[in-house]
């Protein structure tokens, strides 16, 4: 277990030393400067798949296209011969699967994606009574309470207090006092993933990049002006690598959109901390094997 008591102080100067704070706008992975490197030895595979027809200009999702993207991503992630075998490799008849979705009404997990996941689990042999899709009720949901496996699926967005609403952050509803993880830009979110109800259960992470929110305004932290049809999914077994990849796309979008330097603020420290403090995966790009599939225009990474 990482040592939490002797945590060294990370300062702005650590970022300035690498020229990365304002110059590149990137904070993902930088706390490696001071800390032990990730506990994950191997590179993490991340699949970024895009299809320009997955979402229209009004944000409406094309369900069949999305389902096909999901299958292609899972096949590529596992080097499987086809979708059916890929899903069977991930889940089986004995599994009880909680699909942790995100219900934030301004940018929820698309229903079409939830439906596709339930369907694929059924095809993999998981019984219908052993599958649940939930967000805010997961702590009382009987399927989640006896789950053997989890799927983590949510849209990427900027967030007032954590910098980014990520896959790592999506599990905050597993704890009874979410606000107790809000300190230092929610840096300790990785600790939630070590709790018994979560640890070791997540077999699939899907960061929805169909219409990501790259900047927020006001108490409601949302404006249609700051979403764009990126039309992508990021899929991985490593939530840290998936989030770090998504964060780089958001950073790149902000850099392209704003005339001035506007790094994600507050910096999404929880992504690097999930790597270096909690050993949940890889946040540094050089430890991520990124497979790009589909539409390549304005891919930003």
């Amino acid at each position: 277990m990482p040592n939490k008591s002797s945590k060294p102080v990370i300062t702005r100067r650590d970022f300035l030393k690498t020229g990365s704070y304002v110059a590149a706008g990137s904070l993902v992975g930088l706390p490696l400067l001071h800390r032990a490197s990730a506990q994950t030895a191997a590179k993490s595979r991340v699949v970024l798949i895009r299809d320009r027809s997955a979402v229209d200009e009004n944000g409406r999702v094309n369900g069949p296209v999305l389902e096909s993207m999901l299958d292609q991503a899972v096949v590529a992630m596992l080097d499987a011969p086809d979708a059916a075998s890929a899903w069977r490799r991930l889940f089986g008849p004995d599994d009880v699967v909680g699909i942790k979705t995100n219900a934030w009404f301004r940018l929820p997990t698309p229903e079409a994606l939830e439906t596709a996941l339930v369907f694929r689990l059924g095809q993999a042999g998981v019984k219908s009574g052993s599958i649940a899709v939930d967000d805010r009720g997961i702590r009382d949901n009987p399927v989640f309470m006896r789950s053997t496996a989890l799927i983590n699926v949510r849209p990427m967005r900027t967030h007032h207090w954590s910098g980014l609403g990520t896959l790592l952050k999506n599990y905050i509803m597993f704890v009874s006092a979410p606000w107790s993880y809000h300190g230092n830009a929610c840096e300790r979110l990785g600790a939630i993933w070590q709790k018994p109800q979560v640890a070791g259960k997540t077999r699939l992470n899907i960061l929805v990049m169909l219409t990501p929110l790259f900047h927020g305004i006001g108490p409601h932290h949302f404006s249609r002006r700051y979403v764009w049809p990126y039309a992508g999914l990021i899929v991985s077994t490593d939530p840290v690598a998936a989030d770090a990849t998504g964060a780089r796309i958001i950073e790149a979008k902000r850099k392209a959109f704003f005339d001035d330097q506007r790094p994600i603020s507050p910096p999404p420290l929880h992504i690097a901390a999930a790597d270096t403090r909690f050993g949940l995966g890889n946040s540094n790009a050089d430890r991520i094997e990124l497979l790009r599939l589909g539409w390549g225009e304005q891919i930003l990474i």
Partner: protein
Amino acid sequence: MTAQQMNPYGRHRTPAPQLFGLLAGALMIAMTAMTHAASVADLQPKLPTRVSGWQAEGEDRTFDDRTIFGYIDGAGEVYRAYNMRACLSRRFAKDGQTDITLDVFDMGSPEDAFGVFTHDTDGERVDIGQDARYRPGWLSFWQNRFFVSIYLDEESAAAELAVKELGKQVAAAAGKPGKRPSILGLLPAAGLEAGAIRFLHHPIVLNYHYYLFDQNILLLSPRTDAALASYRRGGEQARLLLISYPQARTAREALAGFHRHYLPDAGSSGFARLENGKWSAARQRDRMLTIVLEADSRRFAENLLMEAERNASGE
């Protein structure tokens, strides 16, 4: 005159010898509360129910500093960081038009209403309340002890006009203007970018605007007032942070932490050149800590420190 004598920075900060000042301040606050809307409950009946054809729809909703998370998710932390007391939300609807959401935050004091307003000062300055900004889809302003947000689900010219009219009516109902934080008066005036000042208490809010430490090395708390400001003089730029602590001892500890973790290379002069070529330095006097975070030249940093100290001493 010392900085302590000169500046009763906040609600809990005046030492015993300044009891008279404290009592006078308390009396002023009490009088203010009697003459102005004292809470969102007092303000609620004065708020408009109809504006430019938009009609209030459904029941008003109110939230406290815990239930606010159920309304605006993680953004609730920003308002809690400014000691939010309550939030009243009213929705306006009009056939064929986007909905308008009015959120009135009672911040407990004009200082904190100003502070939370400075959290986001992007946008066009408009003449509503004590200071206001309009960006497409969102109007924000402060008046008295209230921070007000008026939000559009979809942008349209008609809705923008309605939002501004609604803002004017809410500002008029919110009572007389409140005082800005006293610490702002210590900021050197020359070259100050007045529209970009941030007033804050919380380390995460500081990090939001200027990332400094991943821990609370500066010992910020609800009982500290801090002002973060930007300067431009003769082609040079700088960032200045002033912090007023409840006790001089806390200010000393914060300075020691800053030197230990941020400027260990400062040496006896107190100045250090950062990795990006800019200059940083810090000084503490009584309950005040003054930090030049980044200045384009050492001379600029020295001048800012000197001017801030002069303001604090009342010279």
